[in-house]
């Protein structure tokens, strides 16, 4: 079964970010979304540790380790950046000032529940800003492979892993489809053209609501 690469999923998510939007991208895979802003649009990126409007990583050897993002990677500033302390940073998050937060996930449920911080009681638990980010942003989206490495659905009826947030996710960009969460249901918006709805349903852990307007999920080769 063909599926999108991570870069293609990130590209698709980037197409929905409006010019001038304030955006927080989760650590890791979601950071890739920044690379695919459509021409003519410029989002303003927020990082939990107190920067608005940071830019790309500096060249190796040019890092300033007092200028990092939430993933502790060195970044640069764009014109019009601002520094602030952690309480102000999370006032932005919790207070509903971000337009979009894009996160990775272990599981996302049809009721909007998200599980992306813990795979269970083993090891050292760590949550960071994930539980804050899922509250407040006007749109909370996840980007994810549609299934786990061993083929189990990541889009499920109810999460089995410890929750990050309750009823918080509004859109899922997966390797196979774009799915909105509305009124406790997965609503299919786009799917890969080569895949039938039945095939997609077979790898999805909860029922897909299919409306008349399912589009093709088309991305460039990346």
């Amino acid at each position: 079964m063909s599926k999108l690469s991570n870069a293609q999923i990130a590209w698709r998510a980037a197409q929905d970010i409006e010019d001038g939007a304030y955006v927080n991208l989760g650590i890791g895979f979601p950071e890739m979304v920044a690379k695919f802003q459509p021409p003519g649009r410029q989002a303003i990126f927020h990082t939990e540790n107190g920067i608005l409007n940071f830019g790309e990583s500096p060249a190796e050897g040019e890092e300033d380790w007092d200028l990092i993002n939430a993933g502790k990677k060195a970044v640069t500033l764009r014109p019009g950046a601002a520094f602030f302390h952690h309480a102000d940073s999370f006032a932005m998050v919790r207070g509903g000032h971000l337009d979009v937060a894009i996160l990775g996930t272990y599981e996302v449920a049809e009721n909007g529940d998200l599980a992306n911080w813990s795979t269970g009681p083993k090891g050292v638990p760590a949550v960071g800003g994930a539980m804050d980010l899922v509250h407040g942003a006007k749109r909370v989206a996840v980007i994810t492979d549609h299934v786990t490495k061993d083929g189990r659905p990541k889009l499920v009826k109810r999460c089995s892993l410890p929750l990050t947030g309750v009823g918080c996710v509004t859109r899922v960009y997966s390797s196979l489809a774009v799915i909105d969460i509305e009124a406790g249901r997965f609503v299919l918006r786009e799917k890969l053209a080569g895949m039938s709805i039945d095939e997609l349903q077979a790898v999805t852990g909860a029922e897909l609501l299919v409306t008349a307007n399912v589009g093709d999920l088309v991305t460039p080769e990346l």
Partner: protein
Amino acid sequence: MDKTVPDLAAAIAGIDDGMTLMIGGFGGAGAPIELIHALIDRFKATGRPGNLTLINNNAGNGRIGIAAMIDAGMVSKMVCSFPRSSDPRAFTEKYLAGEIALELVPQGTLAERIRAGGAGIPAFYTPTSFGTDLAAGKPTAEFEGRMYVEERWLKADAALLKAERADTMGNLTYRKAARNFSPLMAAAARLTIVQASEVVAPGEIDPEQVITPGIFVTRVVVVPAPQQEEALIRVGAAYQ
């Protein structure tokens, strides 16, 4: 991204009847006189916006600014800590006549409620006002042997603020003690409207010296030589 608008009328677009407005300033320091007067102009021309709830530390002074809004009949309620001033007659007359409502809030609680509104904190506990008339009817709770009052966030449909310098992305600095409530209000309003003495390109404000990051700002209008409320009052100015 460019948050600047061409003039005061464009800056105040969308402010309508029945809204709750936060207005920056403590006394005359930080009072956005030009934005307020533009709102009065619109009210006089069109009859809107009226029935407004205003949130400010005070309740107007003399016959300009908030006092002139009250005189014009635009304001149905004040939320403030200190509805007195050197010349409080606009508010006092309407209040004693029962024509304007007052929610009196201790100054620190007012600041913290606005801060909570911007920070997504629906309620918090404060020792302030415990055991006083201003805590009447509010939930209380004991923490570590001391009693506290539960207070709720304050939010607004719009905020009218005065900054010293803005960039086109809405990053702001303020002049001296004109800062006061404005950074809090910027975050607590759905529509944050700023008059700035100077508007510069992004990058011309040091990122470490930004007081209000642009994420909290909706519109910026340049007002190059803004009036100072206290200075106007001392010369007996009236806006009618």
